[in-house]
């Protein structure tokens, strides 16, 4: 026990006296959380809140054109413009303005678009009532979308969905009115049948609900998604200073001495694991504190921790042991400082990419999604999402923790194997 305490003291002193290393351990993750959350929050707002500039040319100036203009003016999806530099927008000026990046999308509603709907509906109604079609003119029209190539596909889809919704509404109203008129012509006036009015109220409505145990208004947002993701990423980057510490010992000759003294070298490894787990947990608390206290100061939502603090601690501990175990394995496998740094950083980048840190695992192809299940970063992330977004409890976290514990045991087992193999020469 005295030897273990001495080894822990030594590791702590080495860490505390390496000021640049300490700065990397704590300041870099803080910067990462701030930068990534602000960037991702901007992307979130882009799609869900406001500010996307759109320009509209309403050449129709009838029901459809007016409905679209009114609808887009009153949605929080975008900011609608009908003028460019003080002039009424035209097809040519829209094309130029979108090309120059002034607007993300330009919408051109052609002249006679409403007439086309009316003609189409009239033909359909006449055909269904067995009446002669007296319609004259076009039965179709094309709404033109001019899209900036930088526009996200999802945003374009949102706009076209809205347009389809407006067109359907206008078409339904015209259909109702045409039917009313045609039927009124067939019914003798002396029967005293009154025609109804179209109220346009939707029959089917949507109710959105997040599948979460959490009560209150916890909504998925950039903070809820990014703080746990980048916290785990930073915790796993503990691999680099840990590998560096092991490589220094190899290069400075202290490992040589460890192998000649009666105390097992694994005592040094255990001390390292202990100290670096503490560092990981400190990183975790620091970054969660940023989500709770610092991000709201710059206008971002406050991180909601869910219902289970014990679950949070368990997953944080799981990530810490998985990260340190992996660091010890990389430090054992590598033979030079440079090799260790490259192997450590690249493997963490790969594990984080397949683990869903950069892009959500659910949008990955099947093969990558299967691979994702094998990344310890994914286990941790899934655990935190369960706690922060779905309101899961400590019981739900045990499988995640066990996976990370097994990963740690496998890493240490491999470390022992590699050590023995290397010492055999």
């Amino acid at each position, binding site marked *: 026990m005295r030897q273990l305490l001495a080894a822990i003291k030594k590791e702590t002193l080495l860490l505390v006296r390496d000021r640049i290393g300490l700065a990397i351990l704590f300041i870099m993750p803080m910067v990462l959380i701030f930068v990534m959350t602000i960037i991702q929050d901007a992307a979130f707002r882009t799609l869900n809140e406001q500010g996307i500039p759109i320009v509209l040319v309403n050449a129709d100036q009838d029901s459809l054109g007016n409905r679209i203009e009114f609808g887009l003016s009153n949605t929080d999806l975008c900011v609608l413009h009908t003028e460019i530099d003080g002039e009424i927008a035209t097809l040519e000026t829209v094309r130029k303005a979108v090309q120059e990046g002034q607007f993300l999308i330009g919408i051109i509603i052609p002249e006679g678009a409403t007439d086309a709907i009316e003609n189409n509906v009239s033909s359909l109604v006449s055909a269904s009532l067995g009446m002669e079609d007296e319609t004259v003119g076009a039965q179709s029209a094309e709404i033109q979308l001019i899209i900036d190539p930088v526009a996200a596909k999802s945003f374009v889809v949102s706009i076209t969905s809205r347009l389809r919704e407006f067109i359907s509404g206008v078409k339904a109203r015209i259909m109702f009115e045409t039917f009313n008129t045609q039927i009124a012509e067939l019914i003798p006036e002396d029967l005293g049948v009154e025609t109804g009015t179209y109220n346009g109220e939707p029959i089917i409505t949507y109710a959105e609900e997040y599948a979460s145990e959490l009560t209150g208004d916890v909504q998925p947002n950039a903070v809820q998604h990014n703080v746990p993701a980048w916290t785990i990423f930073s915790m796993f980057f503990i691999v680099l200073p840990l590998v560096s510490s092991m490589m220094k010992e190899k290069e*400075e000759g202290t490992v040589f*001495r460890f*192998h000649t003294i009666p*105390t097992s070298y694994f005592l040094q490894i255990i001390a390292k694991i202990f100290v670096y787990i503490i560092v990981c947990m400190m990183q975790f608390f620091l970054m969660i504190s940023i989500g709770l206290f610092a991000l709201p100061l710059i206008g971002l939502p406050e991180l909601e921790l869910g219902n289970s603090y014990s679950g949070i601690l368990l997953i944080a501990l799981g990530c810490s042991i998985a990260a340190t175990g992996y660091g010890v394995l990389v430090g054992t496998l590598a033979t030079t400082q440079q090799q260790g740094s490259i192997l450590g950083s690249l493997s963490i980048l790969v594990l984080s990419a397949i683990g869903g840190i950069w892009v959500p695992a659910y949008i990955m192809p099947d093969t990558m999604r299967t691979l994702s299940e094998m990344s310890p970063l994914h286990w941790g992330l899934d655990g935190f999402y369960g706690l922060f977004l779905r309101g899961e409890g400590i019981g739900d976290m045990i499988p995640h923790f066990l996976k990370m514990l097994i990963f740690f045991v496998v890493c240490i087992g491999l470390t022992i194997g590699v050590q023995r193999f290397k010492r055999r020469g």
Partner: protein
Amino acid sequence: MSSPTVIQIENISKSYAGAEFPAVNNVSFSIQKNEVFGLLGPNGAGKTTIISLLCGLFPPSSGKITINGSDLQSELSKVKNEIGVVPQDIALYPTLTGRENLEFYGTMYKVAKKDLKERIDLWLEKLEMSKSADKRVSSYSGGMKRRINLIAGILHNPSILFLDEPTVGVDVQSRAAIMLHLKELNASGMTIIYTSHHLEEAEKFCTDVAIIDNGHIITRGNPIELINENEGCKNLEEVFLKLTKIKLRD
């Protein structure tokens, strides 16, 4: 009556994976208690491999090593308590102070806390390091680092001490201090196995030397006897050059 044998090496060979020739090839010798045994040879001759094998750092490919009557392979833990090692590299933590390094290594050697403090103070005093003991090793000169490196290997009072080039890169004063205290340790009963490229130092310090080249022992004996046996040689360096030839080594 001759001194008891403390190290017995029987037909040891060591081949590294991928190497064309064995680093140590069927070497046998023994070392008596209280001897100062010098293992001399050009670069790549196999000196450090033999020291590493004797310290139990890795096992030989074949052969047997017995230290203080214990088989090195099967009783490694017991043997490790009886040996001290002063490696060629400065195996110290640069960001810890000299004293912190010594406290750490002394504890790893399981020296009792009270004894450890006394021994550290004693050796720091002897090697004139007391004033600098609480400064970081990174601020030390080469000679100061070597002195702390030596103390770290002897804090547990080993009966056998392995020294791999203990005076390389140090000034004359530090070297003299180190050699003086090594002689004291030997006089107190410690067996010393020593490698060096300073043949003049080895000639004065060692009671027995073995010259090794290409993994084989070429000759072994008392330095004075070896000089006398080799016609035309006035010192150990000339014996060494005569036996290992002048050809440069990698």
